[in-house]
């Protein structure tokens, strides 16, 4: 039994650490906020999930559910955070739209008569 949980932990913890590391590398290497959010929202969440699962395999049974709760709430909140950040970034033009292959949100806003370009210039948003 301990052997099984030891192996599980030995696999899960390094895997989680690798995903966290790659998420951080993504934060550094990706060109704009949108792509960086992908790294933060997915790779980090998966990394944390793996690390917590690996830890849960080692802790006594009465503490393991609490770790699973942490995973649950992380899964619930991480997408919300990244959506808020992404939305704000788009609205203040911190998201570089010239790099987008296609931007259907801008098309929609232009149709509604509120094009994004009507807002202050992007120099203000960079700060």
């Amino acid at each position, binding site marked *: 039994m301990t052997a099984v949980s030891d192996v599980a932990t030995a696999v899960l913890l390094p895997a989680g650490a690798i995903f966290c590391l790659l998420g951080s590398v*993504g934060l550094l290497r*990706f*060109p704009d906020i*949108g792509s960086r959010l992908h790294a933060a929202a*997915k790779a980090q969440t998966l990394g944390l999930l793996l690390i917590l699962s690996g830890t849960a395999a080692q802790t006594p049974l009465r503490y393991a559910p609490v770790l699973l*709760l942490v995973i649950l709430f992380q899964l619930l909140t991480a997408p919300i955070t990244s959506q808020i950040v*992404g*939305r704000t970034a788009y609205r203040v033009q911190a998201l570089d739209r010239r790099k987008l292959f296609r*931007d259907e*949100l801008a098309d929609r806003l232009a149709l509604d008569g509120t094009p994004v370009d009507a807002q202050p210039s992007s120099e203000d948003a960079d700060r």
Partner: protein
Amino acid sequence: MTGREKTHRIRHHLPMVGWLWLLWILLWGSVGPVVLVGGLLVALAVVGTFSLPPVLPGAVPRPLAIGRLLIALLTDLIGSGTAVAWQVLRYGGKTSAAIVEVPLRVDSDLLITAVAEFTTIAPGTLVVEIDRRRQRLYVHTIPVHDEADIARRREAVQSVERRVARAVGTTRRRTGPPGDDGSGPPGDTGTGPSPDPDRGGSTP
């Protein structure tokens, strides 16, 4: 308030009370009588004080579909973690992205929230804007190189939506082909015309 309304209200809040109770017990990490009774009292007090409106009238949770949804969530998460990691290593600063408009069929706050959450967890897609009135999601996706990528992403988000709707049973089983583009009649899904004798839903 008549007795029938009261029992109806209590039944409506029962899942929330149960969940809060379970949370309390898990956080204390023991099942002594003090914890059990105290937790139940706290859960009842919280639900009684902060009474929430019914978020999804007429919904019938389907355990099998929910289980399938959770498994899909897990595989999505692993898939997206690996996909992003691969993006980081392979393309790095040269990743190309797009913002895609996805029309939805579901029309309730909770379902749209759920679809947005699952979409963000799914590989390569991240919701940046929710148009509640028009039932549309605006999804930032990587990587995008051509039109086919955009169509594929839109289809992926809509399949997530179908899974979510199926899990809470507010939609009938889709009869159309899975590759439907989401432009069907708006009354097809959603919470409106689904009277449920068991819960009664939003009847005031």
